[in-house]
Structures are given as structure tokens and as C-alpha cells.
């Protein structure tokens, strides 16, 4: 009974972690950008979905949240990332550190704006389905099952896009050899636009689902970014399957700790694992280098 409970709860949490981290790793893989405003965009999606749900219903709210994350990811790219990448006064070897700082500050701005407009109190997005389903004696909120299913649907759609479409293959190529891709006549700019669009959708879905599953507050921004960052480092920077594997490792490790040790120590073993992996295998589970 306890085993099944851990299995079910861990699966849903891990799926959510995975979806959040996949977008983050994809952007890094394709364009070398570590977007530290990631958590802020997720919380924006959740908060907008919550605010709209009262007037537009659960589905309208969810769509609104998704749209807000999509827009915000483009704003992040055009207003923060691209100007830094194109700036002539920033030496090219320092671009990455400037992008890190820029997106970090941008994330803080969004966080403060959310706190100002919607308080620091957590908000929970109205669940798309209410009620509970009993799986082998374990009472599971139906919305939790839906959350896991939607996460995997989004990850599946992403896989199809990358493996089966020309645009997706260009994306994959850009992460391996961007220079080669430009020589083949692809515009790198368009590939980057595509990856930010995909990121916007993924982070929006993740944010809305997080808001419905656990609730989100502007105070969670830092933790969410850190969690995506840890998962991506653990899985290997830029590797999508690596991130999913890492998300499940961390998700189950946390759930096991919460059930078998103490809920207050939930994050600790995952952090120890992260330190151990960085130490023993710095490229992560499935990293290329």
C-alpha cells in the first residue's frame, strides 16, 4: 500500500519536474542559453491561469496561462537574451555570463511584479477535473493522474516534433553543430525563434499544471529555477532524455524521503546526489562531454 502510494505520487511529481526541465535543457542545448527566469515564467503561467479561471472557467484560465508563458518567453528572448547576444560592447567569451545575469535579474523583476499584483500568497489553479480515483486502494486525485498524462503528452509531442519534422531535425542539428547548420542554408535565427516558441509552450503547460497540482507563489520562483537547473545538470546539460531520467530520479528520491524519512528533509538527498554526480561524473547521466 505504502509502496504503491510512493509509486503513484512519485510518478506525478516526477512527470511535472521532467516537463519543467525539458524546456530548460532544450534552450540550453540549441542556443547555449541558461534561462534563469525559468521559474518566474512558470509561476506567471500559474498565476494568470488562477486569475482568469474565475471569469473564463478552468479551461479558459489554463489557456490564458499558457498564452502568458508563451508571450513572456518571447519577451525574454527579444528584450533580454538577444540584445545581450548581439551587443558589441560585451566580449563574446563573456556573453554567457551576461545572459545568466540578465535572465536572473529579469526573473527577479517578474517575481516582484507577481508579488505586487497578486501577493506572495500561493494560488492554486482550479483543477481541470475534480474528484478522486482509487488505484489499488490508493486514493489519488483525478487531477494528479491528468497532470501526469498531460506532461507525458507534451513530452511525446515534443519528441515527435524533433524526430519527425524538418524544423525539429534542424533543431537537433543546431544543438550538435550550429555552424554546420548555417552552412547548409538554415537561418540560425529562425531555429532560435522556434526553440523559444517550443519552450514557451512547455513552460506554460508545466506552470499551469504545477499551479493545479501543488499551487504556486512568487516565493517559489527561485526554487523552481534551481530545481530545473539541478535536474538538467544531473541529466547532462542539453540532453532531453537525460533530463527526464534525472527528473524521475529526483522525483522518486524526494517522494521516498518524504514518506520514509521526513517530509521536511525532502530536498536533501537529491542535493547530495547532485553533488555526488557533479563530483564523480561532471557530464551528468547522459551528457555528451
Amino acid at each position, binding site marked *: 500500500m505504502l509502496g504503491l*502510494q510512493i509509486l503513484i*505520487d512519485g510518478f506525478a*511529481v516526477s512527470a511535472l519536474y521532467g516537463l519543467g526541465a525539458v524546456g530548460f535543457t532544450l534552450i540550453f542545448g540549441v542556443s547555449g542559453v541558461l534561462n534563469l527566469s525559468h521559474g518566474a515564467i512558470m509561476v506567471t503561467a500559474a498565476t494568470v491561469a488562477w486569475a482568469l*479561471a*474565475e471569469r473564463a472557467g478552468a479551461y479558459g484560465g489554463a489557456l490564458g496561462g499558457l498564452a502568458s508563458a508563451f508571450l513572456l518567453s518571447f519577451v525574454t528572448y527579444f528584450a533580454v537574451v538577444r540584445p545581450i547576444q548581439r551587443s558589441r560592447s560585451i566580449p563574446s567569451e563573456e556573453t554567457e555570463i551576461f545572459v545568466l545575469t540578465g535572465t536572473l535579474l529579469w526573473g527577479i523583476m517578474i517575481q516582484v511584479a507577481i*508579488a*505586487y499584483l497578486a*501577493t*506572495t*500568497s*500561493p*494560488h*492554486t489553479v*482550479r*483543477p481541470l477535473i*475534480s474528484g*478522486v480515483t482509487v488505484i489499488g486502494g490508493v*486514493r*489519488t*486525485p483525478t*487531477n*494528479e493522474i491528468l497532470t501526469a498524462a498531460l506532461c507525458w503528452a507534451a513530452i511525446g509531442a515534443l519528441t515527435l516534433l524533433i524526430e519527425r519534422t524538418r524544423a525539429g531535425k534542424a533543431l537537433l542539428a543546431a544543438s550538435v553543430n550550429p555552424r554546420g547548420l548555417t552552412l547548409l542554408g538554415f537561418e540560425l535565427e529562425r531555429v532560435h525563434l522556434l526553440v523559444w516558441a517550443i519552450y514557451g509552450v512547455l513552460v506554460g503547460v508545466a506552470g499551469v499544471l504545477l499551479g493545479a497540482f*501543488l*499551487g504556486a*507563489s*512568487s516565493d*517559489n520562483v527561485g*526554487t523552481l529555477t534551481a530545481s530545473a537547473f539541478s535536474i538538467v545538470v544531473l541529466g547532462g546539460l542539453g540532453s532531453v532524455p537525460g533530463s527526464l531520467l534525472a527528473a524521475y530520479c529526483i522525483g522518486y528520491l524526494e*517522494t521516498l524521503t*518524504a*514518506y520514509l524519512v521526513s*517530509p*521536511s528533509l*525532502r530536498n536533501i538527498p537529491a542535493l547530495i546526489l547532485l553533488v555526488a554526480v557533479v563530483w564523480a561524473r561532471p557530464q551528468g547521466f547522459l551528457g555528451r562531454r
Partner: protein
Amino acid sequence: MSKLRLPWAVGAAVMLPLVAQAAEPIRIGVIAENSAISGIAIPNAAQVAADEINAAGGVDGRRIEIVAYDDHNSAADAVRALQRLSSQDKVQAVIASYTSEVALALEPWAGRLKLPTITPGAASDEITKRVHDDYAHLKYMFQGYLASTFLAQSVCDAAKDLIVDGPLHVKTAAIFSEDAAWTGPLDAGYAACLPKIGVTLLDTIRLSPDTTDFTPIFNGLEAKKPDVLITGISHVGVQPTVQWANQQVPIPMFGVASQATSTTFWKDTNGAAEGVVLQNMATESVPTTAKTVPFAQSYIKRYGVSPAYPGYTTYDAVHYIADAIHRAGSDDPEKLVDALQKTDWTGTVGQIRFYGAGDSHTNGMVYGPGTVSGLFVQWQSGKQVAVWPKGVAGDGRLVFPAFVKAAN
């Protein structure tokens, strides 16, 4: 005659500003976390009280001015704000914070700056114990809210009437509280008073205020089969309540849940609060005193939501500070502290008095029937329905959602 008129007129013109200057405003500082449900109620309620007093002609002809700072719930920011209120804004008194950790950080500074400071919502017993232990230095600090020990006592008193003797016949309980300064004495109080009302304590969970996933905690508690969860939560609230409802945890929640004291809680939880029973200082529909409902209504009219619990205590604090300044006839902090200690004010939460230097809760709000005993409400269909004490609750009854087993 006409020669005399001009000097008179000139004299009057010179005198007028002097007369106006004589009525220096009374400045009251406010320090709170403006982005939190409970925090924002503090400056808002202070302003409502100040406007009311000013509209009625002020205190002895002096207007009340509120000087408010946001401390972002940081002790360091709050201390800086207190220093600024003292040195730059030259306030006569301060109303500060609903967080015990912040109030405890302000306490020595209130002493050093000799600035009467009242917390309208921090509950730790340590605040008043320190005043008792070092009275000469710390007598400037007041607790304008019930100490944790009294909160625990009020939960037990209400639990006895409502769920032990009542139709639920509760026999076992688990404490569900957050790990913070104010819950130390609260949990100790629960552990001491629950057995006295015939309830066996099965487990105590002190959860980290950073917790976002409460599933393992609820599942662990459910396995121990307590009849009720006795809550002590303030910095968390929305998430455990929503997850309690989504997972249909079959155990009722009963106790202190500060975020749930504001009407915004219903919307923040999408109605998951249904059935939650909580201690509140007052609520907009129950005339604890003749002042409660009029204040709540003017607050709602102005801000669109009902005041969270420190809203009521802050509104009262502005009034009894003004009353104390009037009685002291002076802005001198020593005289003001003396006058505040002699407070006997009918506020929105009851008859407000403070314990004296001989009591271990020196300068703390007196708890009990005839003074302030708190109020228990239950969220029912978007409204806080008063259920205890019987004198004010009328015929309000407990109604739990279908998934709560005790309901059947």
C-alpha cells in the same frame, strides 16, 4: 478705532499659523509585509482607523498620520524601518508585523529607541516573556494579539464544546503545525490542554514552511487515524488546504490557520476551504462588540476584501494608542507606555487590557471571557460562519464536506 484694526488683523495673521502648529499631528508608524494576505491588512486597517479619528476631529484637535513601511517579512528591513520611524519620521508609536521572528527582532530596538511598539499579530509567548524578564529596557513592546499559549487554550476550549462534547465525539487528534517561533508554545499548549478535554494526541507534525507537496504528510497522518487535525499554520495555508480537499483527506481541520482569516482565502483556494474550522479574532458578520461589524464593513467597502485577523487588532491598536495619548496628555514615551498599560478599551475583538509587570505575559493582551476570547468560524459556501463561542455564534453549526468521515 480704525487705527487699532490693522495691528489686530496683523496680529491675528501672525498668530494663526502658531495656533495651527500647536496641533502637531500624532504620527503612528506601521511596519508590515505588504504582499501577504495577513500583512497588507495592517497598513490598510491603520488607515481606516486614522481617517475615522480625523473625521471626528482628531485627538485633542491633533490629526493622526500613518507612516507605513513594507518590511518584506524581513527582520533586517523591519529594524531599519523602525529606526527610520524613530529618527526621521519622529512617530509617537509603531504598529509592527504579524511575524514573531520579526517582532522579536524589533523588541530590543523598541527598547533602545524608547519607542512604544505594538505587534498586532505576532503570537510568540517569548515576546512578552522578554518584557517580563527585562522590564526596564523592554517595557515599550506590547503584544496586541493573543499569545500562542492563549491561542492553544482557545482552540481547546472551542474544541471541547464543538467537537468533543458535540456530535462528532472526537477522541484522538494529531497536531499539524508549521515550524516557526510562534508554534513552539502553541504546540506545547495543545499538548497540555488536549488531554484535559479528553482527547488523546497521536502525533505531532511540525512541517517546514517551505513545503509545497503535502501529500506525504496527509497520507502519514491518515495512517494514524486521528479524529481531527489540530492546526497551527500561518505562513502556509492555501496549499495544504487545497491538497487536503483535492485528496479528500477524511479528517477535519480545526485550529489556527491565519491565512484563512481573510475572505481572499476562499478565492485563493478555489473554495477548497469548505469545512475548515479556524480561530479568528473577529469576522465581518458577527458583532463581537458594537464596533466589529461597522469597522469590517467600512474596510470591505474601501478594499474589496474583509480584513485578515491583524486588520481588526491594528484598527483597535490605532484607537487605543490615540486614547492613551489623550489620557497621557503628552507624547513622552514613558508616559505613553504607562497610559498604554492602563488601556481598557472596547475594540473590535473584545475588551482590550494588558497583563501587568507581575504577570509572565507582561504587556500581552489579556485572554478570557469578558476580555478577548477569540472567535471560531467555519468556511461554509464562501462565507465564514461563526460557530463559537455560543454567545456570539447564535445558531451557527459545523458542516463538513462529504469526504470528511467524521461528518457521517
